[in-house]
């Protein structure tokens, strides 16, 4: 054993010693409470010592003689493929029965249809569910706690997430009630009448990919979706002004009650959330 080899052997042993000691240390740290960082470092040293030792062993103390292996062509040539083709077709009872072959394919098609049954059970047909939300005429606009939200609890430029009464936390009923101010709102037609005293309500579900449109930049009166930055102009009926969304956030028709609470005048005027192919065909 020459000097180089002796040095390499000591090095490999040192690596293995690191593994041995850090392994025991890891057990100790774990028993004493187990700090994630200390455990991570010890585990890395434990694994790293083993890896480094094994690699150094191979590099320094094993033959690195260059070996050459012949490479033979993989295929067996035309004879081989002909033989396979013959083996596949030489049974006349199979290869000559064209009608039966067709029948087998048709039967497999039927089996595929049968196999669709469990697949179709995985979820209900969408039906009307994408067109509807729990909002109905007369339902109060409530907060996360199912308590009606009052107009005086929303300052000018304020925003609050509301739900249909009885459905707090509703995913498709979630709505933003914004105190935009009557002087800043520029709504037309019905939309204007659905915004009593400068309060306006839009669906909180983005029409692009369905994230909650949670960011309200009050100074510009713009709602932004944090997922893909679709930006909607609250003053102009929540039309998209930037980003990938192409459809306004549907507006919820609301009215202000005498006691300062709000009620819905009905469901949203169009489907909420991400668009789908038949949304304009009425399902």
């Amino acid at each position, binding site marked *: 054993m020459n000097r180089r080899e002796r040095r390499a052997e000591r090095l490999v042993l040192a690596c293995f010693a690191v593994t041995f000691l850090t392994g025991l240390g890891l057990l100790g740290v*774990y028993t004493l409470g*187990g700090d*994630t*960082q*200390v455990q*991570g470092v010890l*585990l*890395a040293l434990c*694994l*790293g010592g*083993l*890896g480094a*030792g*094994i*690699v*150094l062993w*191979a*590099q320094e103390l094993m*033959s*690195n003689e*260059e*070996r*050459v*292996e*012949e490479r033979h062509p*993989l295929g067996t040539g035309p004879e081989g493929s002909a033989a396979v083709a013959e083996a596949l077709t030489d049974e006349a009872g199979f290869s000559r029965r064209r009608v039966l072959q067709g029948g087998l394919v048709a039967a497999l098609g039927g089996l595929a249809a049968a196999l669709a049954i469990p*697949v*179709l059970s*995985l*979820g*209900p*047909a969408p039906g009307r*569910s994408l067109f509807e939300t729990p909002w109905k005429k007369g339902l109060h606009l409530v907060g*996360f706690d199912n308590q009606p939200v009052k107009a005086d609890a929303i300052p000018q430029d304020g925003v609050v*997430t509301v739900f249909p009464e009885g459905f707090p*936390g*509703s*995913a*498709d009923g*979630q709505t933003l009630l914004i105190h935009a101010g009557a002087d800043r709102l520029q709504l037309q037609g019905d939309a204007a009448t659905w915004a009593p005293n400068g309060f306006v309500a839009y669906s909180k579900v983005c029409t*692009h*990919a*369905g*994230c*909650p449109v*949670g960011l309200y930049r009050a100074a510009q009166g713009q709602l932004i979706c944090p*997922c*893909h*930055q679709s930006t909607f102009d609250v003053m102009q009926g929540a039309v*998209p002004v930037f980003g*990938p*969304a*192409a*459809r306004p956030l549907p507006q919820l028709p609301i009215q202000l009650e005498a006691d300062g609470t709000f009620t819905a005048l009905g469901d949203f005027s169009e489907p909420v959330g*991400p*668009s*789908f*192919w*038949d949304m*304009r065909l009425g399902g």
Partner: protein
Amino acid sequence: MKAPRFGRRERPVVDPIGRPLNDPARELRDAEARGDASAVDVIADPEPTELERITGWLDERTGLAGLVRTTLRKVFPDHWSFLLGEIALFCFIILVATGTFLTFFFVPSASQTTYAGPYPPLQGATVSEAYNSVLRLSFDVKAGLLMRQVHHWTAVVFVAVIVAHLSRVFFTGAFRRPREINWLIGFGLLTFALAEGFTGYSLPDDLLSGTGARIAYSAAISIPLIGPYVASLLFGGEFPTAAFLPRFFVLHVMLLPALFAGAIVAHVGLVFLQKHTQFRVGRAREDNVVGRHFWPGQAFVSGGLFFLTAAVVALLGGLVQINPIWAYGPFDAPIVSSPAQPDWYVGWLDGSLRIFPPFEPVILGITIPSAFVPGVVIPGILFTIVGIWPFIERRVTGDRAPHNLLDWPWESPFRAATGAAILGLFAILTLAGGNDVLSAFLDLPIESLTWLFRFLVLAFPIAVWLVVYALCRSRQRYPAPDERPKGGIRLVRNATGGWEEAE
């Protein structure tokens, strides 16, 4: 009892084609001539070593001795870039190991419970069983957080290593005949890895994972004619559903790992059958393999590499916090946090959704949703191009010959330029997926960055293509250092005191 003898015997038994290497008859004659009775016994009826007894026992029952010997003597070309695929395999093994640990604690259920663990702000919060169990794993199970973080970091580097391995195979032309099938299998492995990553990201049921699942649902629903059905079948109804968590769990821990493991067996099996490719250096030719024997040299290097890979992810998992779900809070449909990103390897898809212009045409009453083109069509096209690249290149170059020697990347400017352009496109899309974080970091408005990315996503790949193509062409005009005559000229003193060139 006799001590087992595992030591190597003095003589090898057979040569590679199974002929006896030594000549027992001659050795027997010699021993008899010396009068060495014990040697005569041993040579006449050599006692098998303990190891030989074990291999013999197995061989009698399987007949695999020849194959095993061929495998142990198989030659592996040694270049560091050939180890990237191995590291990816090791990451998979680490993922299975740590993931198995996690499944012992994870509860794949969306049913609601009240949090009563040690994290103060959440005490009393209504959370899903899934979220609750991941918090318990993180805070109450000793070393649980470490295992979880190692699992997540391994997933993060796993895809990066797969992409690096895929790039090596791509730029060296290793996918050419006869290895097209293995390219397709490898491409399948990449998509399985992405699906694994996405389903795993969705399991803790925290605010971010729910947002990610929500976007996947929206991409599914955007497909014309079948979208609402596909989304409903996948999620078990209209999002959010209680069904999707247990479903994603089964996909994540059973179906996808099984597919992945099966594809790995086919992937490595084909490498075994076809033998590894090699660079055109030294004695390497089309019809040979030059390198190191599998046993023990290559096996030790690979084994050591496994532990070194595990050490790297253990270090990350111990020192760098990943996915602190307690800080994000449980998923709740009306609540969102910003920034909201997927893990980096899905970032390009998010980037595509972010920078695509608002486009929602209505054709004959049929709406093409705005998420459809950037969320379904573009990823489909990009992945199809990558998946069928061997056939595209064969069509373009007309090169149908088998190749066992690798190209250097610059030797095929068209391939190198196209590959770099595709990587560049993915890089821009990935950066665009973080446009809000970059906006805060660079102090530029999101809108300006988005427009910049809209421009770059078209211009950058073209620029990269042209630059890489030009670089490859110019590289081709000059020989590589190792292609020049070695050592230059050697001068020696001649008898008259002058210098002359040596042989």
